[in-house]
């Protein structure tokens, strides 16, 4: 899943479905589309 954290962060974040299931070194392909 993705989630946007508004100001002051102003960042998108990747959130694993299982919160214990995201490790350092994992790779994800991200494509950004704006309306």
């Amino acid at each position, binding site marked *: 899943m993705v989630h946007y954290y508004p100001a002051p962060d102003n960042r998108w974040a990747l959130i694993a479905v299982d919160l214990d299931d995201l490790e350092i070194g*994992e790779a994800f392909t991200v494509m*950004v589309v704006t309306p």
Partner: protein
Amino acid sequence: MNTGSGRAGFFQITAPTNTSNALYSETDGAGAAVYAKKIISTGGAALRVEAAANTATALDIVKGGIRVEGAGVNTSTAVFTHLTTAASVLSSGVSIIDNPMCNGKANAMLLVTPDVSGPPTGRTPSWSTTTRRRTTGGR
């Protein structure tokens, strides 16, 4: 070249039965057949296409794929690789995507898919098969 206002060029076919392309260019060289570039203004797109209707095709690739030049780990490109690091993972299950292509863009849409083929060249996968299968992004 137009140093004032208005278009620099205009091509039009007014006959609906004419199936020819209004503009056609080709080259035998290594350069692109068509290259659209904006020089100064960062507003608007370098290339815009508009179909006759919402459901009509706006872009048709007759042959070949799509390339995003320079795309890689956290590059400022339309497509990039997000690699979870000690700095990006702030809490359990949350990894911040710090990239200028989406920073500050709350209305952006992110298409995310796990790269299960492994991280980019030179890195060793740190996950187990079980962990990799259960991790999901982009929904």
